[in-house]
Each structure stands twice: as structure tokens, then as C-alpha cells.
């Protein structure tokens, strides 16, 4: 019986780690949605680009490798805004979403071409792999990355919350997310708040790239694709209208997936997606505006 308790703690650790990473992704997606009303399906490819950068700079000092990962991801994020999001402003949500599908496929195909230059598919990002080692906490093995992930997530979220609450650009971004038209009427510079959201969202994608390559150093063109899909689901289930409900949604779906996976009998774990998505449907039916969106109706009527 004693092993059950320890397995539970381990699972709980994993659940927190997964939830933390998904929460970071949710913030990145939610911030851009807030100011642009655009669901960026290509968010995962920012992370993928960061992961490839880490792989290709594996020989470099770790710090340099991580810095270049952030540089590449933020640059790509800004380029996406400039070349794709900006011309799409004002388009219908469906068109914006489908365009980001196309961007996502474009970047995956590009990655495939670059990746295959050496004749094999996939690259190894090993510089940060040591974080994957386990440390023993009170007899329970927890991987270091779990602590790092939770630490990075909490740190990043607190920092972002402070910037949003205390600075002028934060105030302007919140105003733009809540009522863009009125914000512009007051002189809030649209391009500036959008650039802010896009850069922060890129920084978060960079951080996620580092954390995910620790867990899975084998980088392929579809790196982070599945995670992004799950986070998008979580964000809507949590309530995409607000940053904090979106973030909680991302955290919750990561956390719950790990727990459900552990709770299912071993021969039934293959049905994990069905269980999780059935839960998603139930929650959406009960709370269409978002699980955490108390007392609010859906502002996102049409997509």
C-alpha cells in the first residue's frame, strides 16, 4: 500500500509540471487573443522553432544556446504578426484561425526541409537535458525539470501580472484586450500594445521550448503540435476572454490529463483522450463561456 502514496506524489509532481508548462502556453495564446481576437494555431511552431534552435546550438555554452532560442522565437513571433496577423486584422475569426493553420503547416514543412539536410529526421537538443535527472524528495523521485517548470511558470506569471498591473504598457494592453476601440479612441497605440503582446507571447514560447526539450530532447517538425492543440482546448474551456481564466484552463487541462492517465487502469490508458475530451464536452455544455468565467456570458459569440 505504501507505494500507492508515493506514486501519487510522483504523479502529482508530474501533473504540476505539465500544468505549469501548459499554463505558460495558455498565457502566450491568451495574450495575443486578447489584443487581436485571433486564435493562433501556429503558436506551437514558435516553440518548435525554439526547440530546433536549441538542438542546432547544442554545442554552444548553455546560456548562449538558450539566448539564441529566445532570439529566434521572438523574431519569428514578430514576423508572424507583421506578415500575417497585421494584414488579417478585422477579418472574421474563422479566416484568421484557418490562416494560422496554413502558417503552422508552412513552418512545419520548412522545418522538415531544414531538418532533412543532414539526411535524418529529427535533431537532439541535449544542452539542457541534465535537468531531466531525478532528485529524491522525501523518498519520492521527482525530476528536476518539474521544479524548474513550476518555478519558471510561477516566476513568469508573477512578473507578467506585475507588468500588466503596474506599468503603462500593461494598462494599455489590458484596456485593449477589454475594449480595443475605446482604447484607441483614448490614444492607446494599437501597434505598440500588439507588439508588446506578441513579444511577451514569444518570450513565453521560448521558455516553453526550453522546458519541453528537457522532457523530450528529440525535436521533429511536429514538436509541440499536440501540446498546442490541447492547450487551445484548455484555454477555451477555461475561458479565453480573460487572461487568468485562459491560464487556469491551460493549467487545468495539463494537470487533469496527467491525473486521469494515472487513474485509468493500465489496459485502458489508450482511451485517455476520449475521457479527457468527454470531460471537455461536458464542461463546455455546462459553462460555455468558460469554466472559470464566473457570472459572465460568452463575449466571443461568433467564430
Amino acid at each position, binding site marked *: 500500500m505504501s507505494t500507492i502514496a508515493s506514486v501519487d506524489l510522483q504523479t502529482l509532481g508530474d501533473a504540476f509540471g505539465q500544468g505549469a508548462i501548459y499554463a505558460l502556453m495558455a498565457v502566450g495564446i491568451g495574450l495575443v487573443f486578447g489584443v487581436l481576437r485571433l486564435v493562433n494555431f501556429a503558436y506551437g511552431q514558435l516553440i518548435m522553432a525554439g526547440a530546433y534552435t536549441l538542438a542546432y546550438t547544442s554545442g554552444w555554452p548553455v546560456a548562449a544556446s538558450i539566448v539564441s532560442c529566445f532570439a529566434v522565437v521572438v523574431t519569428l513571433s514578430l514576423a508572424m504578426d507583421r506578415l500575417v496577423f497585421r494584414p488579417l486584422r478585422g477579418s472574421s475569426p474563422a479566416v484568421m484561425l484557418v490562416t494560422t493553420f496554413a502558417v503552422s503547416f508552412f513552418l512545419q514543412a520548412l522545418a522538415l526541409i531544414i531538418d532533412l539536410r543532414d539526411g535524418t529526421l529529427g535533431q537532439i537538443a541535449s544542452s539542457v537535458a541534465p535537468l531531466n535527472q531525478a532528485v529524491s524528495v522525501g523518498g519520492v523521485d521527482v525530476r528536476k525539470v518539474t521544479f524548474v517548470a513550476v518555478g519558471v511558470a510561477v516566476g513568469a506569471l508573477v512578473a507578467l501580472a506585475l507588468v500588466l498591473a503596474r506599468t*503603462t504598457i500593461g494598462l494599455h494592453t489590458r484596456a485593449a484586450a477589454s475594449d480595443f*476601440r475605446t482604447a*484607441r479612441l483614448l490614444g492607446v497605440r494599437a501597434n505598440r500594445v500588439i507588439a508588446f503582446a506578441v513579444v511577451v507571447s514569444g518570450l513565453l514560447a521560448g521558455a516553453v521550448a526550453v522546458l519541453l526539450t528537457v522532457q523530450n530532447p528529440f525535436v521533429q517538425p511536429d514538436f509541440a503540435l499536440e501540446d498546442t492543440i490541447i492547450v487551445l482546448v484548455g484555454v477555451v474551456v477555461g475561458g479565453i476572454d480573460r487572461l487568468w481564466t485562459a491560464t487556469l484552463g491551460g493549467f487545468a487541462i495539463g494537470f487533469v490529463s496527467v491525473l486521469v492517465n494515472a487513474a485509468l487502469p493500465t489496459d485502458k490508458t489508450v482511451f485517455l483522450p476520449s475521457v479527457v475530451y468527454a470531460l471537455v464536452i461536458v464542461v463546455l455544455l455546462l459553462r460555455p463561456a468558460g469554466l472559470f468565467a464566473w457570472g459572465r456570458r460568452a463575449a466571443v459569440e461568433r467564430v
Partner: protein
Amino acid sequence: MPEAAALELDGIEVRYGSVSAVRDLTLSVGKGEIVGLIGPNGAGKSTTLHAIMGLLPAHRGEIRLHGQSLRRRSAEAIARAGIALVPEGRRIFGDFTVEENLRLGLAARRQAYIGDALGPAFELFPILAEFRRRQAGALSGGQQQQLAIGRALVARPDILLLDEPSLGLAPLAVDGIFQAFTEIREVGTTILLVEQRAQRTVALANRTHVLVGGELQMTLGPADAEDTDKIIAAYLAS
């Protein structure tokens, strides 16, 4: 040539798709004046203000600020050029504090400021200073309107556009904001006031234009304030 008016509309037409909501509208607001714009619902008053702010393009004609055309400028650029709109329905940020709402008004401010940047709002409406940490959504309707006006004023605009500021307010609150308009004019801010309270507007403004069905019907002076028949006739003409 005489000095250009603070704000001039020169034969503007504004359309929604193929339907024109305002046609051939010409009016000018001199520096330090209050000009009224009244008319029944759907007359095109808000449309006119939106066109001035650059939220809607003028299909024809020119809008000029101090003699300079505002054509193709974005709303945010026009706000930073010195025009502030207090929109219909106030549009305050209910989840934000009073102070945060006011600080948003600073986004359009052109010069650096000394002292309390929010001073212009607090001097006119002391209650805002008292409630600065409260949630804006928790204020009464009259206080929210004061907040919306204060938010526009902290940008120190040359021209203040107001869209039905008295709508839905208790009589006492209406008195308060009309009093405020006089004080705002005294510090040299020019006002274009869109209202439904015809009589009070005519009495307050240097000139009041009556807009009906998107066209200018008549222009009234303060002396016409008591002449209710004339005002009613202007409303009904169409």
C-alpha cells in the same frame, strides 16, 4: 485670412455601406466655443462624431483641425492630435479602478506634465479623487459620466466631443454635468456637444445645429432657448 476655426466640417458625407447616414454637413467650432448638435434618434449625430474621430471615413468632404485635414488619420492619431471623445454610453472600463481609467486618458496627452497629471479631472470632479481606488463599474451613473469626461480631460485636449452625456442620468446629475461644461469652456477647451436635451443645450451653446435625417435643418442661438415651438418645428421638419 482669419484664424482657422478649431474644428471644421466641410460638406461631409458619411456612409454605412451604401447607405449614407450624414449628408453634406458643414459646421465649424471656433476656439473656446461650445457648439451644440441636437436631433432625434438616428439623425446621424453619433455618426458625425465618429467621423471626426476617424472611426468612420468621410465619404466626401473634409474635416479639419486648426485648418489641417484629418483625412486618413487613425482614431489613436486623432486623439493624440488633440481631440477627445466622450462616447455614447460612456465606455468606461468597469473592471479597472477609477485611477486606471483616468490614466488611460493620458495615452493621448501631448506635453509632459508637472504635478498631478490627473489634476484636470480631480479639480472638476473632486469625487473622482475620493474614489480613485474604487472599481469604476461600482460608481453611480452620474459618477461614471464624470469619470468619462475626466478621462477625456486629462489628455488636455483642444476639443472635447461629447455624445449624449446626460443620457440616463438623474436630474441632479444632469445639472452637475451641464455646470461642468461651462467650467470646461472657461479654461479654454472647445466643445462640440451632442445632446437630446434640446432646450438646455440651446441655452448653453454659442450655436446649436439641428440635425434631422442626416441633414442640417436649422441653426439656433441662445435666444431661441425659450422658443420651444421653433425647436420642436426643427425636429419635426423632414
